[in-house]
């Protein structure tokens, strides 16, 4: 069987040279297009026109982040493709007789660069909150203790607990996805003590590293407990359930 791959690559003249529309696609369904701009010395500057970088920017990725830049730094040694930080473009200078390889190298680098979208952290942060809430709902169901969510725990409504268990001694759980939120938990606990409010405050962090080891150590003095969720989901569930009945 003879397969004609060439028809999948479309070439078009431009004012500065030509472009090649490849059959490769970015995650948002746009094609990888490679621009070949003619230089004064007769060579071509082959580039992705900044399309790969723009897609990362649209996904909230910092293209000047250390991890991304270290990958880009290695590219010239591995594939010959360089990163133009002024233009945010992948590029490769090529003589006319080598241009096919340069076009493929740029297209390949563009697709690989798109894979750096894994550097996003938003989804992880969001799933942490969802996972903790799921455990807390299970505790509420199993214990029969009523729980409310996003509930204010002071009269002024300044402090919002992610979950408030309406036990004999109320228990507020704060999901601390950031240092700021952990600090809020400490303020909640301090404010409750000041008002002689019996409500207990437990903070939960994804890992000590995620908000800072010192911060977690400090929070244990200014909350009833500060727990690490991470790989201790079952232990977390048991601790919350035990706290509710004691």
């Amino acid at each position, binding site marked *: 069987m003879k397969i004609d791959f060439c028809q999948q690559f479309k070439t078009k003249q*431009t004012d500065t040279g030509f472009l090649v*529309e490849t059959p490769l696609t970015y*995650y948002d*369904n746009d*094609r990888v297009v490679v621009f070949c701009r003619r230089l004064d010395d007769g060579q071509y500057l082959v580039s992705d026109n900044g399309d790969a970088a723009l897609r990362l920017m649209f996904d*909230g990725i910092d293209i000047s982040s250390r991890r991304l830049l270290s990958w880009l730094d290695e590219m010239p040694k591995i594939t010959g493709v360089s990163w133009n930080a002024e233009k945010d473009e992948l590029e490769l200078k090529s003589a006319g007789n080598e241009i096919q390889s340069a076009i493929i190298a740029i297209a390949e680098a563009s697709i690989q660069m798109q894979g750096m979208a894994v550097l996003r952290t938003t989804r992880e942060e969001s799933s942490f909150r969802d996972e903790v809430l799921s455990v807390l709902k299970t505790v509420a169901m199993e214990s029969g203790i009523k729980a409310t969510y996003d509930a204010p725990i002071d009269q002024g409504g300044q402090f919002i607990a992610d979950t408030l268990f309406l036990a004999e001694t109320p228990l507020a759980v704060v999901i601390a996805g950031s240092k700021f939120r952990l600090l809020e938990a400490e303020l909640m606990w301090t404010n409750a003590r000041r008002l002689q409010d019996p409500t207990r405050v437990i903070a939960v962090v994804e890992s000590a590293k995620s908000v800072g080891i010192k911060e977690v150590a400090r929070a244990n003095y200014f909350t009833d407990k500060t727990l690490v969720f991470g790989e201790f989901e079952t232990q977390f569930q048991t601790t919350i359930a035990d706290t509710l009945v004691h």
Partner: protein
Amino acid sequence: MDRTWMSRSQLTQVKRTEKHLLNVEFKPIRKNNLPRPLHRVGGPRLQSSKMLNIGDNYRACFIWKTAQEWEGRSLYGWLFEETAKGLLPLARMDYHPSHKPLHLVLNCESGIYLVNRNLVGCKEYIIMPDSRFDPDSSYDRDRFINIFCAKLNIRLGEGELLS
């Protein structure tokens, strides 16, 4: 649980909701000028509007990329919904003449968590197969914005930008 992607009927409801865009002004953009997920957008070839409040929880933003050659230029119009966890992209209208006419990417039945993200893995519709714009022309950028508003049921200013 927050909504993170849309069904067809939810998207139809978004379209029906009254929205109002007063004015769009493009300015050079640097990192952190815009909120997530566009907070990393910046560069010498890019200009954008602000993140515009167009009513209720809806936001719109426009991005223009210039280049030496017409084929390297592009225009993007975003429609977002503000949620508790961040901005959920609902639609993005693109014009990049390197390989596609004017098209609309919709956050519809993707099954992907898209809050604070680009519209990846979404449905795409060509809306004007024979359209031709020059993103570097302010007249054509206004045309683009007019079409974006017409497609997504957004009332423009007192009348139309081009009136």
